[in-house]
């Protein structure tokens, strides 16, 4: 019965897809030089240039400044009154791995098994997801596609959001392995796992963590020996972690969990990034001292405890910034990513400030994902990942993207939802 139902659902979904964005094509490579002028440039590194000029050629930024000279006889957009930003980066998402949350057949984000370091998110990334274009239209141009499931879930890759297929989209492949730490907290849910087990829950969590450490110890030993009679794919896939070509993203939230996360840096010398870090504000100084970066949970969250400040999640980013922690702002889910910039806006309102909030979804995200040499800010030599908005991009009241460029290619801002909008405007005769 279920199968039949799902099959029917799929026929419906398929029908809908026909209506949608099939005629929205990925943009071709940048061929002509483009300049944008008379705009307020928000570089992503904290600098704002009023009435600025930015030029890019063959996908790279070639000029940024207040009075950068504009070569003659090329394409120039006069953006009087508009704002220019680096493309926003979603640092932690299952975009393209899941299409409909409640439909299992569309979920390719969660693999079974406890230790899956060789699993790669990039190969499941669906460039034809109808969600992708709904993010671009709000200014998101890059995303880190993250696998889930088990303890060590596999590697994420950064994609740019305008590709024919995942090879096209791959921006930085296998930038990090993802660990999901078990919760080190006795829960109070009377129905949930571990309810009433007291310390056993903690102990079994610690046992799992110890198994992960043992795995890395054995991987390290394995990698020290050049020849093997039996190849271990799991160990092999940690090689770039030990060489620091990849980072270890540890998903955890509470103080004890984060302290454990720092042990992976101490013992193995990994580049550790905490993902989540809801309570990171409590140990911001420790994280700063140990150079642990944080992809912090979305500010649009409820406080963890009834006694927490009502605006605690809103002000956590500012507290991390004040302590000198390298952090960027994350957002749950996939379709929800289109509100990432508004989460940054809330953090801006609660002490972070607008340009720092922008940095927390652009340059800092690029640094944490290992792509800051090529993107994250509007600087000469970096990829021309650029967004133009008529107003403040961080505020939904003013966020209105008119143009966007990925590697210099001007991408379409159309999407399935706009097309449905047009369809029913047509029905009702609305102009």
């Amino acid at each position: 019965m279920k199968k039949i139902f799902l099959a029917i659902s799929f026929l419906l979904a398929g029908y809908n897809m026909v209506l949608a964005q099939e005629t929205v094509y990925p943009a071709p490579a940048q061929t002509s030089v483009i300049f944008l002028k008379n705009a307020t440039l928000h570089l992503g590194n904290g600098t704002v240039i009023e009435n600025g000029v930015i030029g890019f050629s063959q996908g790279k930024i070639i000029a940024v400044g207040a009075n950068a000279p504009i070569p003659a006889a090329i394409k120039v957009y006069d953006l009087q009154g508009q704002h220019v930003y680096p493309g926003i980066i979603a640092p932690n998402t299952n975009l393209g791995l899941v299409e409909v949350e409640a439909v299992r057949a569309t979920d390719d984000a969660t693999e079974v098994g406890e230790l899956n370091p060789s699993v790669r998110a990039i190969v499941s990334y669906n460039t034809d997801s109808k969600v992708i274009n709904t993010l671009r239209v709000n200014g998101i141009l890059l995303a880190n596609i993250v696998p889930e499931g088990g303890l060590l879930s596999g590697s994420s890759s950064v994609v740019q959001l305008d590709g024919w297929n995942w090879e096209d989209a791959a921006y930085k492949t296998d930038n990090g392995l993802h660990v999901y730490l078990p919760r080190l907290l006795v829960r109070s849910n009377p129905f949930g796992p571990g309810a009433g087990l007291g310390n056993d829950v903690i102990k079994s969590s610690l046992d799992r963590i110890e198994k992960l450490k043992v795995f890395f110890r054995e991987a390290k030993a394995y990698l020290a020996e050049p020849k093997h009679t039996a190849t271990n794919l799991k160990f092999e896939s940690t090689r770039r972690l030990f060489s620091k070509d990849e980072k270890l993203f540890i998903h955890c939230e509470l103080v004890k969990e984060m302290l454990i996360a720092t042990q992976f840096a101490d013992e193995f010398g990994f580049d550790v990034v905490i993902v989540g870090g809801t309570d990171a504000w409590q140990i911001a100084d420790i994280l700063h001292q140990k150079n642990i970066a944080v992809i912090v949970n979305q500010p649009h969250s409820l406080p963890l405890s009834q006694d927490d400040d009502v605006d605690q999640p809103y002000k956590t980013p500012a507290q991390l910034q004040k302590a000198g922690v390298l952090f960027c702002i994350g957002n749950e889910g996939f379709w929800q990513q289109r509100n990432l910039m508004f989460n940054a806006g809330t953090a801006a309102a609660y002490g972070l400030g607008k340009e720092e909030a922008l940095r927390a979804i652009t340059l800092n995200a690029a640094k944490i994902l290992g792509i800051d040499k090529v993107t994250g800010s509007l600087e000469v030599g970096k990829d021309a990942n650029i967004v133009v908005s008529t107003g403040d991009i961080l505020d939904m009241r003013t966020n209105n993207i008119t143009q966007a460029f990925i590697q210099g290619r001007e991408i379409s801002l159309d999407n399935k939802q706009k097309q449905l909008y047009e369809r029913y405007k047509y029905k009702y005769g609305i102009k």
Partner: protein
Amino acid sequence: MKNGLSLFNPAGRISRRRMPALLWPGGFCVLAGLLWPSVMQAQQTFPVNGVADPRINCYAFTHATLVKDPQTTLANATLVIREGRIVTAAPGAAVPLDAVVIDCKGKYIYPSFIDLYSDYGVTVAPRAGRNYGAGPQFISSTKGAYNWNQAIRAEVNASALFAADFGKAATLREAGFGTVLTHAQDGIARGSGAVVTLAAERENKVLLKARASAHYTFNKGSSTQDYPGSLMGCIALLRQTYLDAQWYKSQPAREGQNLSLQAWNENQSLPQIFEAADKWNVLRADKIGDEFGVQYIFKAGGNEYQRLPEMAATKGTFILPVNFPAAYDVEDPNDARFLALSDMKHWELAPTEPGAFEKAGIPFCLTAADLKDVKSFLANVRKAIDYGLTPEKALEALTRVPASLLKISDQVGTLEPGKLANFLVTSGPLFNENTVLYQNWVQGIRYVLKNEGWQDIRGTYTLSVNGPQGNSQYTLLLKGSANTPALVVLQQDSIAGTFNIEDQFVKIAFPLTKNGSRTLRLSGLAGAGSWNGTGLDTSGNPVKWTSTYANGYTPTADSSKKKVPADLGKIYYPFLGDGFETKPKQQDILIKNATVWTSESESVLPNTDVLLRGGKIAQIGKNLAAANARVIDGTGKYLTAGIIDEHSHIAISSGVNEGSQSVTSEVRIADVINPEDINIYRQLSGGVTTSHLLHGSANTIGGQSQLVKLRWGANAEEMKFTNWDPFIKFALGENVKQSNWGDRQRERFPQTRMGVEQVLYDAFTRAHDYDQEGPGKRRDLELDALVEILHHKRFITCHSYVQSEINMLMHTADHFGFTINTFTHILEGYKVADKMKAHGAGAGTFADWWAYKMEVLDAIPYNAMLMQQEGLTVAINSDDAEMARRLNQEAAKTVKYGGNTEADAWKMVTINPAKLLHIADRVGSIKTGKDADVVLWSDNPLSIYAKAEKTIVDGIVYFDRDLDTQMHQRITAEKNRLVQKMLAEKKKGGGTQKAVPTRDDHYHCEDLQGGHQNDLLDGDAVAEAGQ
């Protein structure tokens, strides 16, 4: 001592006339604990195997301090009992010739305690672990001519199930109890309770009253039936059963025999006891009682002290537990991170409950129920006395009050002639810390609780030891407490020895010299006149010894004083860290020079003053002045009407869905408002002032909703928005056809959108026929609500997604002649906005949700704008405790998606939801005469940078950002104070409990069972499915 292991029968050992002095000096009764089911006069109908042994068990207790009742204490009095009953209780009363005399000089006699909340001797089926993967169970699985609902067990009589449990009886007697009211603690209606004594005798003799009470709760116990699956369902079931039982009196042919309803009716004349177990549940139960003319006795849960005026207003008597929580183990600050101040404060204040009830004049008794260990009962009562309960009231609560509630005062409760000989013999005033309970007599049978110390043997003795080494004399001193005297051998350099007396056997051991390594060991009998026996000297040679009493011992006076706990924290309203110590008051407030967004036709008024007076918006204009008004400078700020959330699930207790049946219009959110949900405060901080609390979307016809104002600190009734048009929640689509509930949930009708239509047609057809039915019909709460819809007295807000089902519902409504007031979620409303307009429906929707399930694949963020452009009244609502704090931002998304004007966007969270809820004449805009529900914002209210600085409801400032900062400093300070206090408690050796996270349940539409906390703290929620 266990039953059957007693060493000897006391009556056989003790002479009829006068008890011999078993131990010199005078009258030391060496009596073992006795459980011997035959001492009481045998029942006439039972044959005797052997020689008959009839007893009259006449005893006289002389020279006692007799506490006949809490107000009457007789010094040097005599209590005479015979055949299990009291004969006389007075000073100088004559001692009958056939009485065994027990000298109680120095001792106190009290009535034994009565516990009204016990399951003694009545075992019930263990609660079946609910198998959430199993299919649904629609009707009771109880075999027989009983009720449709398995949790209605009115037919159960505890007396029929009762089997004396001597072990458990002994434990209860040790705690001081002589009589209990026991009942089968299973089900929502639990049938009748029975009064039994705790004598270790045949059931026939101890059963005092077979049908003494009727019992109810909100806990369905072992019932495996799906309904009710929520607290509001329990309440509806009780209400419907009251109605059904009334109707059943007419012996309706359609019902046949229903033994449960018959018993229910028979039980109504008994005292009605409701286990509420929580302050709010007390009020919920009381409301049911008020509706059906029943005054319940409430079994409390221990937090009722937090709402004393409300408790007093129930006019009920309470059964208070004394299971005061142990301190939390807060040594690890990270583990204690999620232990909320509310739980910590409850730890500190729980022992004040009985004393607080006494001060408030609320009648109560005390129970040992809920205690993990009954042995701690008396210690906890004493703790309650330390925290303000008077000893007189404590005794009252344990004796006379419960006896009178059960109308058994002629039998128990005080020591009056004719009553049962149920009494305690103690070493002193009952509630003094060091007082020992020696004996608990039940129905004239002695049960020894403690022998040691009955006779004070402390004093000096001359010990003579004869052995191969000749005769040695020692002077012994027994000092310390009477229960466990300590031995000192008096000589130049006194030696501490060990001394032990058990029953009548004495053990003495001591070294001959101080720090000597060898010990003299003696064993013997504490006989009348002297102690003597045998032993071994330090060389192992046998010796004989005698010991004779020389002088008494004068103990040093007990210097321990009543422990008065210092610095108790204050009660907060609500009882959370963010609660108020004193509830905020309505003020006259003049907001000066603000940019006022009115949500009226003239949408923005720059530099304008607004005067709030008497809870209303009194005046709007320039340069207003008002004497005595609090002036707030609004320069540079924005003033708007409070946000109205048309779709909310906050502030709801124990379940937002009664999803067990497809039609549950009988359940009411009004019954389960939780005024202490922290999300109320959080949403005030986001500018919300009114919320429409909806039933979930698990079934087609859900429950009745409730409109509330966010009056932080009020109780449930006070939160209600008065005089509003009642609404009900309907739902369509994937949730009601259980699409995402797993493979086992494939039985409940409907499983398709075709079936959903049929559920609706069937329900309204039944309602229509019911409405036409003549007098004498069975009143049906489910159909009553639907009839209200048919008569346009109740309005529908319907969860809906796809255009086909929206269309279908409007056709159904048209067929039955009513209008769908509001479609919520309505993410495909844009596809049929023209039809909705023609039907007359409005819309409450989300700004930009989609992709979480199949039916939202075509959801678009332009939906709200398209519907507005087609002329619908459109609201943006939350369905989410987090998003509800930012509804201003969600409204702003309509500016982004579809180019709404700011004025119209703002209306989507103020006047438009007010219109949808039929309250636009009272709230939703800034207009003279409307309720003073306003918000002062730091910035353009639609901006991401805007903060609600003050949120005012009825002219009362419930949220103030400056005050919030102070409140959080107070939380930190108060938490630290309690942490230090708990650490000290742990250091003292007081028991502790694990500091588990405090639960803060919140709900979405589809949550079927308990809600969930912040996801990070929750385990996997049960049967939860998307939005």
